[in-house]
């Protein structure tokens, strides 16, 4: 598959939020650089994990890909077409092919609509199924596909548990027969015993329909389980991007190393022998990010050059790292 052109290609994406001051004469005094020059690709049928802590820009990146957030700079190319500046009409066919799965399925589903209506609504908008009977039948098929009973179609969202609501959200996305699902923390709000059900559902749907996922999450164990490749973000930048096995076996960026060391393994005997290296401090604000490498104030190995020059993302044989010391 590596020879196929990527399904999604993001090049030098920047999303800046202007910061204004003054009441009478409003003027821009700065910008929060939520996403600041991010490039990656997602191939058909592939899962790219996007990990990082809050404020690193991973969710904004997902929204920008869907054009739900305007890009300040850069290009978003979906299946060969540059959609960065496409208008509503031009976006419509692409919107169908890219669907979003949210963290909080309750907030994303209308409480006054039945499950059947929730699933049918996008089919009406995109004129996928024309007759009501056809849509009803399709909604029932979709419910079965995500592991719910077809007779649940007449119920309302509040009658369902968190895991079931997430299944409904997935069914609605699948109604569009998408090629790419952008999943923003899709299991982090769910109970531990339910997370595995939804993770397995994502996997089986990928096998069945050849879906590609942009899987945005902070849980590194879930991301490892789900992803083929992983991009690690810190303060609006990708600091490392690599195949799953490479990244987890040999993380090269000090931030990737710190993230992985922070995750406890559910086995006391292993934990007792693991070195507890951990970074100090917290993620600084994106309004005034540190100079040079944005991680340098927290980096245990930082040198003078790290505060001075911003490291570029360099390809080291399939594993790309933005660090002066690697």
């Amino acid at each position: 598959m590596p020879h196929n052109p990527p399904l999604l290609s993001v090049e030098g994406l920047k999303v800046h939020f202007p910061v204004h001051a003054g009441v009478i004469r409003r003027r821009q005094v700065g910008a929060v650089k939520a996403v600041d020059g991010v490039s990656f690709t997602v191939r058909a049928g592939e899962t790219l994990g996007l990990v990082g802590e809050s404020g690193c820009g991973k969710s904004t990146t997902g929204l920008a890909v869907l054009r739900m957030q305007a890009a300040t700079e850069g290009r978003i190319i979906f299946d060969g077409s540059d959609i960065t500046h496409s208008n509503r009409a031009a976006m419509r066919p692409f919107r169908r092919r890219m669907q979003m799965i949210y963290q909080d399925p309750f907030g994303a589903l209308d409480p006054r609509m039945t499950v059947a209506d929730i699933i049918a609504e996008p089919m009406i908008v995109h004129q996928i199924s024309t007759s009501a009977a056809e849509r009803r039948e399709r909604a029932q098929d979709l419910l079965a596909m995500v592991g719910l009973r077809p007779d649940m179609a007449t119920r309302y969202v509040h009658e369902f548990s968190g895991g079931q609501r997430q299944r409904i959200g997935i069914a609605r996305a699948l109604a569009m027969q998408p090629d790419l699902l952008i999943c923003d923390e899709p299991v982090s709000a769910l109970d531990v015993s339910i997370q595995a059900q939804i993770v397995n559902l994502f996997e089986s749907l990928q096998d069945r329909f050849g879906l590609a996922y942009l899987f945005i999450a902070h849980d590194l164990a879930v991301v490892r389980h789900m992803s083929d490749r992983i991009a690690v973000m810190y303060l609006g930048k990708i600091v490392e991007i690599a195949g799953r096995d490479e990244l987890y076996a040999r993380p090269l960026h000090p931030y990737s190393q710190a993230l992985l060391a922070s995750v406890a393994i559910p086995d006391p005997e292993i934990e007792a022998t693991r070195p507890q290296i951990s970074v100090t401090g917290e993620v600084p604000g994106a309004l005034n990010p540190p100079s040079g490498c944005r991680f340098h104030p927290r980096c245990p190995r930082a040198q003078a050059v790290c505060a001075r020059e911003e490291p570029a993302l360099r390809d080291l044989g399939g594993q790309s790292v933005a660090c002066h010391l690697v």
Partner: protein
Amino acid sequence: MAESLLRVRNLTTRFRTEAGWVTAVDDVSFDLAAGETLAIVGESGSGKSVTALSMLRLIPRPPGEIVGGSVVFEGRDLCQVSDAEMQAIRGNRIAMIFQEPMTSLNPSLTLGVQVGEPLVLHRGASWAAAFARAGELLGRVRIPDATARLQAYPHQMSGGQRQRAMIAMALACQPRLIIADEPTTALDVTVQSQILALLKELTRETGAALILITHDLGVVARYADRVAVMYGGRMVETASARDLYKHPLHPYTRGLLASIPRLDAPTGQKLLPIDGQPPDLARMPPGCAFQPRCHTAQPGCAVTRPTMTEARPEHWKACFIDAA
């Protein structure tokens, strides 16, 4: 086991809801030795937080009430002492750290006032002495420029620093027991491990016992001496951390451990989820709470409720079925 600092027996708490009475904590018993770290693990609705709140008599009434059981701490039953005695214990002998420091800190008071207040209230310290001690405590939880930060308000601090301040406040009166309810769930991954390591280090230094309430089985493995697993308001298994992970006996514990992805597991394997949904506390089955989701259930499991029995030395489970 050493002399227990805390002995909880048959604690039962219920709430009146639209669906009728709901038993959120159902006949829960456990012991805690001085200096020990006990993790109470469970999913939302398992009763782990309500257990902690019941121990401190912080259940709003109505709609809630503690209907039975005893919580013997340092020889006194906290369910029987007067409100005034309870107030003298809370924040003094037992301190609590909550999940969201922003909502448990007062936004209109400086850190110095909030960290120093327990000393004024419980120890009769002067405010000058309390401020000085608060500065020391903030330094101890590694807040930079601690003395200057005494004048800071919670909104001027990051999430991790606010949780550090909560820990400083909890430590102020040198409690014998600290109850931390999901203390790092709202924090970023790299900050989580800093805060938990700090909490563990400080309890070790001061000899305080720690009850760590969490849903994260990795955190439990890293920090707990002993584990109690809760499901549907009931305790289903308790053992030393090592024994619980090595020989999980209750089907729910086994299911949880099999369902979570691990950093050290071989890749390409399917997760083994627990089927079904967490129990609805308003409609609990008559027998074992986990029986509707259990692969090993026998007909009797739906009829009779299992009690905790010692299946291995110091390893208790509430299940009729012998685990292989």
